[in-house]
């Protein structure tokens, strides 16, 4: 009887144990469809010691078996930081194949923080709410508080020296450009100087003009005097850069005062201009002797200027 009772009690005990065993299994095993423990949260730092001048990289990774669309993850709020400043964040979703032939869905969020001071820095736990789309069940996962040590900054890479090289190159380019323009300027100046020096001296040009256009033995001496005056004024204008065409005799004589010409030449020119005025404006017929005198004075002046030109040119050649 006792044996029977013991046998019955053993049977109840086994049944009780079996019932208890079944009840104490994880949800995933017990209710795979609900998936309570299928989703996993993993947070980690790339390095636990970060130099002061480098970013702290913090990853939050959610993973589960199956499709990516199985869980709807609520937007994750920014973690509470101590001695860190958020620089940026990014996220990615991926599927990883498992040995069983199934896939593991991974949702990864990466934060980059800037260390503020040397010492310890902390990233508080992050709470992630999610919804199982299959069952409609909502739940949440919370990560641990993470600490990171901010250590001495690393020396900067060769940025400074690269900058110096760039500056040096720019400086060299700058001086090269200046040198180029200086060379071009002096070359042009030399060319201009060479081209400015006339092959035929200006006084010679006007001497030729005088002999071609003014005939001292011509019949109409008044007309010849007019031409002579015009040619000579033109020459003075060209050679001494004085506006003779628009100037009266007094104005020309005033300008001649400031020119580097002999006193005797100045006196001769004054006399020539006065005589020319008398001929041109006093209605006086030209006396051939007067005309010859004017012509001779102008011609002598031009010849003298020609000699000055030639000696200047010779000096220039010697200098070269």
């Amino acid at each position, binding site marked *: 009887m006792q044996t029977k009772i013991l046998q019955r009690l053993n049977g109840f005990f086994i049944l009780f144990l079996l019932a208890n065993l079944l009840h104490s299994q994880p949800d995933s095993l017990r209710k795979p469809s609900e998936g309570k423990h299928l989703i996993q949260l993993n947070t980690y730092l790339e390095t636990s010691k970060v130099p002061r001048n480098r970013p702290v990289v913090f990853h939050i990774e959610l993973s589960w078996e199956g499709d990516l669309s199985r869980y709807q993850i609520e937007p994750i709020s920014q973690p509470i930081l101590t001695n860190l400043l958020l620089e940026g964040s990014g996220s990615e979703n991926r599927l990883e194949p498992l040995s069983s032939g199934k896939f593991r869905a991974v949702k990864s969020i990466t934060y980059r923080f800037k260390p503020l001071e040397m010492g310890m820095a902390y990233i508080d736990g992050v709470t992630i709410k999610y919804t199982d789309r299959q069952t409609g069940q909502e739940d949440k996962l919370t990560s641990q508080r993470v600490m990171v040590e901010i250590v001495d900054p690393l020396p900067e890479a060769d940025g400074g020296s690269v900058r110096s090289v760039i500056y040096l190159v720019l400086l060299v380019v700058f001086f090269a450009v200046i040198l180029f323009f200086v060379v071009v300027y002096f070359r042009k100046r030399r060319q201009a100087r060479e081209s400015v020096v006339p092959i035929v001296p200006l006084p010679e040009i006007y001497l030729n003009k005088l002999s071609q256009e003014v005939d001292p033995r011509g019949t109409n001496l*008044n007309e010849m005097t007019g031409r002579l005056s015009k040619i000579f004024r033109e020459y003075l204008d060209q050679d001494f850069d004085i*506006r003779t*065409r*628009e*100037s*009266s*005799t*007094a*104005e020309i004589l005033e300008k001649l005062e400031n020119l580097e010409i002999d006193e005797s030449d100045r006196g001769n020119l004054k006399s020539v201009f006065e005589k020319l*005025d*008398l001929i*041109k*404006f*006093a*209605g*006086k*017929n030209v006396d051939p002797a007067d005309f010859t005198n004017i012509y001779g004075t102008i011609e002598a002046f031009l010849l003298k200027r020609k000699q000055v030109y030639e000696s200047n040119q010779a000096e220039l050649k010697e200098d070269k």
Partner: protein
Amino acid sequence: MNVDIQAINEKIERESAFVEKITAEVGKVIVGQTYMVERLLIGLLCNGHILLEGVPGLAKTLTVKTLSSVIQTKFQRIQFTPDLLPADLLGTLIYNQKTGDFSVRKGPLFANLILADEINRSPAKVQSALLESMQERQITIGDQTYQLEDPFLVMATQNPIEQEGTYPLPEAQVDRFMLKLNITYPNKEEELDIMQRMTSGSVPDTDPVVEPKDIVKASLVVNEVYMDEKIDRYIVDLVFATREPEKYGLKDLAPLIAFGASPRASINLKLAAKAHAFLRRRGFVTPEDIKAIGLDVLRHRIIVTYEAEAEEVTSEDVVRRVLNQIEVP
């Protein structure tokens, strides 16, 4: 074409002898202002009138008064005011109760040298009366016309600094003045001389050195001064350059000139240049004379545009450009 320039020169030498005497006598009282004295003589020799612009206190009145005493002519100074009437200038008929007749009372215009001070202070009718007399050289009072004595020179002044309550002369009337002079301040040495001379307690006396008939005679000789056709053409070129500047290489002046100089400018420039040559004791005109007198003859005959006024370009600037740009013969 042979002109007897020798004979003209000799005549001029004879007739212009008074010029130096006048200058010397006026110089006893007036310091500097040779420019003004010379222009006054040009006006007298050409029977022209002079418009004078300058700030007060530059001895304008004293100069004319002194000149008048030196050449023994009658001088009158008329201060133009807003309430002046034409009769105050010309004269009027006065009824004589005793005789029962009207007698003529001649106005101050019956003189040889007249200083019309601040002409722009009087209304147009008074200005017109003066300008008509200047032009006609005669005055009609009642039914009697009186010829004005030669020489007859009106020197009108305009005060450039007070323009409120004035009646600016119309351009047509300004044109009747042969010359417009701009009188400037004396230099430091002259100022010192003026100050010492005027505070010495006695104003130097001047002696009459010439009679009015000598001036009239000289003005006839001025007409004989030879002017070559080249100079005539030069004058025409200058005047035309103010009307059609673009044709004379002065394109930039075209938008600055509203109205160029009138034919009266050409006539007066020729006359004034002859008188200038006479004062230089030369029997013929050269471009130098034109250049010397050109500014005074032309500055009041060119009307500049609003654009020129905005750019602060005056008619004087325009004339200077023309004189410096036009080719001389």
